[in-house]
């Protein structure tokens, strides 16, 4: 009926892509948040001096 190649491997490939995207976008979100915080801290410092 269904061979491996046509459908099983693509499904696992898509799963891997989704897993990788989740990890990457979580890291990316955290890094962007850190940058925004650093900028806010720098701005606050500049205002106070």
């Amino acid at each position, binding site marked *: 009926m269904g061979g491996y190649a*046509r459908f099983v491997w693509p499904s696992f490939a*898509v*799963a891997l892509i989704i897993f990788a995207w*989740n*990890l990457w976008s979580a890291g990316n979100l955290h890094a962007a948040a850190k940058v925004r915080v650093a900028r*806010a801290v720098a701005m606050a410092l500049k205002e106070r001096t």
Partner: protein
Amino acid sequence: MWTWFYRLASPPYVYGVAATLTPWLLAGAVVALGYGEGVGLFFAPADYQQGDAFRIIYVHVPAGWISMFCYSTMAIAGAIALIWRIKIGHAVAAAAAPIGASFTLLALVTGSLWGRPMWGTYWVWDPRLTSELILLFLYIGVMSLRSAFEDPARGDRAAALLGLVGGVNIPIIHYSVVWWNSLHQGATVAKFGKPTMALSMLVPLLACFLGFMLFFGAVLCMRLRGEVLNRERQAKWVREAIKT
């Protein structure tokens, strides 16, 4: 006794706990998935009808469960934040939404790939696939509503309310889709659900499910740290936090 629960409401504590939890959850996910997918792919017996194409179940079914579990996490976190004004709830809801959407997409794609050998076409208006598709629309609705507001606090509250309203509607939508499907196609079409499974097939599936859950927990913790930072830019503790 309840101190750990109350401390969950304080952003710095949650930021720290999320950091320590992530590696453990990821490790657990790797182990569980390694076993589950490995056995599911190579060692578990093929289905007598569908042959090896049946193995897609080890990705499709856990992804479907997680997409639902993630929506309820988002809806409950949003409700807690909306009702008891605990800001962390909004951060959890905002973190959970994209993960849930990605797993819904995974469930849809693998469902359609699985449909090809079973029905000969990539898309069939099957009740479970249709409900999954509508769930994806609900996720997109919540995420776009959250980002449509300039003031993030207001976007959080609006998204929390929509998540709740969507959550109440999910069972209604699901059963009306099942009712609609049973009307037009009758019961002749092979029911898409999990055929009754031998233990040797079930154990790897449960392992995969555990793996998906642990992975969801890990990514939720990672995104949560980012979302907490975004919402606590004025707080003092944030200055030390970004140093590490």
